[in-house]
């Protein structure tokens, strides 16, 4: 025997059996080798036809995004199928081949991305460069996964692609889901819009969901919420894409297995395996908003021609009933891919259509602020209801003269008349006594100077000035004149329309500061509630009901007294309480709101009100930029919003309106000349 199995050991006992074992092992290996050679050499051609030429590819099933409803179940944001043109990177060469020849594993039909881009640019009317960029942005993903080149193509474009299908291996049309906004630009700021995810967002989203949902949960080409509710509720609204598998040949065409018995069994076996791996798309969750579509529509009609914002809120709960800013914009332009010029036009428009003014517009509250110093003065014992101040049309404080908006003066005014007729002199006087600290304390109690907690669009906090604040930010000491201005809502005071509505709600509901909310509940596609919002009281105004009653009664007087600044905005059958405001625009101090010199120098018109006065169901706050007088411009808008609200009388709000509706409204004095509410310049 060969030396390798010549066992030279010291005991020869097992030698014969060892030789037998060698024989067995060699025999075993020969059998194995024979089997390999049969499968690989004899039958190899047969197997390779199926295993190497055809391959099974995952195709995504786009999950529909959650639908957004108003409180009555009307669709605000919907989805519809779209046809997207995609390319499959695995079927496309990165570079043009130096030498023409078949690529490995493919039929030799693969084109390079440059050629594909040129063809698609012609067929889809998009720059070739953007095709190449999208192709490159997909590096690092599985190469067979389609990359969207142009979403939601037209029928003509689709036909063009189909016609050139054979010449464009690797290009395909895929069914996707497209977000549509049923009411166009009616909810652009509130609901927001979608856009293609950018790389920094992608990184952030992957950090959040990569671990639980997989790295491919968000991918290049996905559309994500960029603004408003779409952004804030992105994790709820997004569905989970499904996946299914198809058998493809080398050029990406689907193949039906039908060749030969064995081959078919094999293909069926693969398909079955892949079917098990596939999963259906699971739709995103639906949102039901607190918004009333009809009310929102009415607001939009009323704001036609005005620049500004309207917020309607349930005072008892903080539910937002309507929230609209004018001008607005088409929320679908961003999903379509906005051109640079169109973007620049939107961005530089002096009326700021992109800005959510209700949450981010910071306006001097003007006289709508006056309930705060009034309440503070009563609560702190600075004045009583009997205290009167003589208004000759001006007052001298700290050696300076502060004018009332009524040049001729109001004569002797008490707190009620001061509010009803918006006498500035009265407030100058009590403001000087109260001091800025106590005014600020009450302003903060009403939620001013801090975001309301709605949680959308990075809302602005507004501003409640204080001595410390001025020293730190303006780098000047606080002077008595600042306090005097602050008392009538001018000076450094800034509020957002939402803050104004919330502050009015607290006045209306007996001093409870509510957290506003706009999403009533989140539910699955089959209606199972995932999250239900509850009214949340986040603070309480430190006054007794009687004191608050004085203010409420005065606010009723604003509409119902013959001399009230909003007496012409009464509503038949419903008692409305409110306050007008006219905020000065041209100022030389820091506030950058409305300071663009090219824009109108007219004052902002404000009005905030609630109704019915006895058991408030709605608060409406209106700000019209450069609208002029609050009583003349803003109050009628609020009145019409309330009229719509009460006329329909269908809101599912607990409460008995009938009982209140029978109370007669006080007859208004027709003869009294309208007194516009305005604050003259202090300097």
């Amino acid at each position: 025997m060969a030396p390798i199995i010549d066992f030279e050991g010291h005991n020869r006992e097992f030698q014969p059996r060892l030789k037998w074992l060698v024989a067995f092992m060699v025999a075993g290996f020969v059998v194995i080798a024979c089997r390999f050679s049969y499968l690989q050499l004899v039958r190899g051609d047969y197997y390779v036809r199926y295993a190497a030429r055809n391959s099974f590819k995952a195709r995504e099933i786009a999950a529909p995004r959650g639908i957004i409803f108003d409180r009555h179940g009307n669709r605000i944001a919907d989805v519809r199928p779209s046809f997207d043109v995609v390319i499959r990177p695995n079927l496309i060469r990165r570079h043009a081949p130096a030498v023409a020849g078949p690529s490995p594993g493919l039929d030799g039909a693969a084109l390079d991305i440059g050629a594909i881009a040129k063809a698609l640019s012609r067929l889809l009317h998009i720059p070739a460069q953007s095709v190449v960029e999208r192709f490159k942005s997909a590096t690092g993903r599985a190469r067979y996964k389609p990359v969207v080149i142009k979403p939601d193509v037209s029928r003509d474009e689709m036909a063009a692609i189909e016609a050139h299908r054979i010449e464009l291996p690797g290009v395909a049309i895929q069914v996707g889901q497209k977000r549509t906004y049923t009411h166009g630009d009616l909810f652009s700021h509130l609901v927001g819009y979608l856009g293609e995810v950018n790389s920094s967002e992608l990184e952030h989203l992957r950090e959040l969901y990569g671990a639980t949902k997989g790295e491919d949960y968000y991918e290049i080409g996905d559309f994500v919420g960029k603004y408003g509710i779409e952004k804030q509720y992105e994790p709820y609204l997004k569905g989970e894409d499904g996946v299914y598998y198809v058998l493809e040949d080398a050029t990406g065409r689907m193949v039906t297995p039908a060749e030969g018995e064995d081959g078919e069994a094999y293909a069926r076996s693969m398909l079955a395996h892949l079917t098990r791996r596939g999963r259906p798309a699971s739709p995103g969750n639906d949102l039901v908003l607190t918004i009333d579509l009809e009310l929102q529509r009415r607001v939009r009609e009323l704001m036609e021609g005005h620049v500004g914002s309207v917020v309607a809120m349930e005072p008892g709960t903080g539910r937002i009933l309507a929230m609209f800013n004018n001008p607005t914009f088409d929320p679908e332009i961003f999903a379509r891919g906005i051109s640079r010029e169109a973007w620049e036009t939107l961005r530089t428009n002096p009326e700021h259509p992109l800005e959510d003014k209700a949450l981010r517009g910071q306006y001097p509250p003007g006289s709508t602020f006056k309930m705060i110093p009034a309440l503070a003065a009563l609560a702190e014992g600075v004045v009583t209801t009997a205290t009167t101040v003589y208004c000759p049309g001006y007052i001298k404080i700290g050696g300076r003269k502060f004018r009332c908006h009524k040049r001729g003066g109001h004569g002797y005014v008490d707190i009620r008349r001061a509010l009803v007729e918006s006498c500035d002199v009265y407030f100058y006087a009590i403001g000087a006594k109260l001091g800025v600290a106590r005014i600020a304390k009450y302003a903060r109690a009403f939620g001013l100077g801090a975001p309301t907690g709605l949680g959308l669009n990075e809302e602005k906090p507004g501003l409640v000035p204080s001595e410390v604040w001025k020293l730190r930010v303006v780098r000047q000491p606080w002077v008595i004149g600042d306090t005097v201005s602050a008392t009538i809502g001018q000076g450094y005071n800034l509020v957002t329309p939402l803050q104004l509505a919330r502050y009015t709600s607290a006045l209306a509901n007996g001093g409870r500061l509510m957290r506003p909310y706009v999403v009533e509940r989140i539910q699955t596609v089959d209606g199972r509630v995932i999250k239900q919002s509850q009214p949340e009281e986040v603070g309480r105004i430190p006054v007794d009901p009687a004191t608050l009653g004085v203010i409420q009664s005065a606010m009723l007087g604003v509409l119902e007294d013959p001399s009230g600044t909003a007496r012409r905005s009464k509503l038949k059958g419903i008692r409305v309480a409110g306050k007008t405001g006219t905020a000065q625009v041209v100022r030389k101090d820091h506030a950058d709101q409305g300071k663009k010199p090219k824009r109108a120098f007219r004052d902002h018109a404000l009005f905030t009100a609630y109704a019915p006065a006895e058991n408030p169901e709605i608060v409406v706050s209106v700000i019209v930029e450069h609208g002029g007088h609050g009583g003349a411009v803003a109050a009628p808008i609020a009145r019409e919003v309330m009229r719509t609200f009460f006329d329909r009388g269908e809101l599912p709000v607990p409460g008995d309106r009938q009982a209140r509706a029978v109370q007669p409204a006080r007859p208004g004095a027709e003869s009294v000349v309208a007194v516009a509410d305005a604050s003259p310049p202090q300097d």
Partner: protein
Amino acid sequence: MDRRLLAHFNWTILLIVLILDAVGLINLYSAVQQEGQGGTSTVFFSQVAFVALSVIAMLAMTVLDYRVYERLAYPLYGLGILLLTVPLITGRVISGARRWIDLGPFSMQPSEFGKLLLVIVLAKYFHSHVMVGGYRLRDLAKPTMLLVPMVTLIYLSPDLGTAAFYVMLFVAVAFAVNLRWRSILILAIVVAVSLPVVYTVALTDYQRNRVVALLDPAGDPLGKGYQILQARYAIGAGQLLGSGYLKGMQTHQGFIPENHTDFVITVLAEEWGFVGCLVVLTLFLALLVLGLRVAGQAKERFGAILATGIVCAIFLQILVNMGAVLGLLPVTGITLPLMSYGGSSILTIHLMVGLLLNISMRRYMF
């Protein structure tokens, strides 16, 4: 260490094992690359760690004279029984079986180490019970008493494939230590007669399905025959030279279940073709024959039986594993030595080869 030991060190065996380790890792790297999953799975990196540790363990095994295992054979056997019992009591159920001992980040599969312990205890028994003229069937009664507890515990886990493997290993060792031909013939007849009975009575539906699948994989391509059929196409598609490293279509689309463990050879077959398979088979065969040579050259009886048992254990695993993948034997869940993923399996094989090296280098000692 004695300089003579180093002089007699079997470098060829060491080299073959290291080459197979490298081939195994290169192949496993490809096996875990799946379309649609970026990056390299942790499976690969833990295997790298397992192999590195195992090579060190293998070399460490050569330090102590192997005869220490003769003295420790029974205590080690007791330890083996204990280890096999643990997963039955505490083990987590992984795909319907309790085969693993949970050790925090790792889990240990005692039935792998048990193969070595069985070989040691059988070597000890046959070493100390010499039978001139060969063993008769009745002489196997006592060593069978050593086998039965192990097989029972493994059968209960339940892991019929491994239990059957232990029986085969026992028979192989018995054959090697001169079981009489007459006894072998009787044994063969008994097995042949009882197979149909075992098939109908002792096997579960699940186990019977594997036999049916073996005989007719295309009969139920979506279910029972799926794995075998997929493996067949992957192997066949390799042809003479293979599709190229990391280019196996079947492999990378995840069509073959367990393609990093039991079916790991399909990856090699698809990507390296018949040539690749032949190279690996040659390396394995060389290792086995060199192992038997160690047995033949061993200084004394215990070492000879131990080395033979080890070689038989490695050979039977290769045979059973490749037989299953190639559709010649039912699928039993036996891993391919040095190629399949699995720390316990990798470590056990290295410990076995370490003992071979140990026996080989001490063939002129004492």
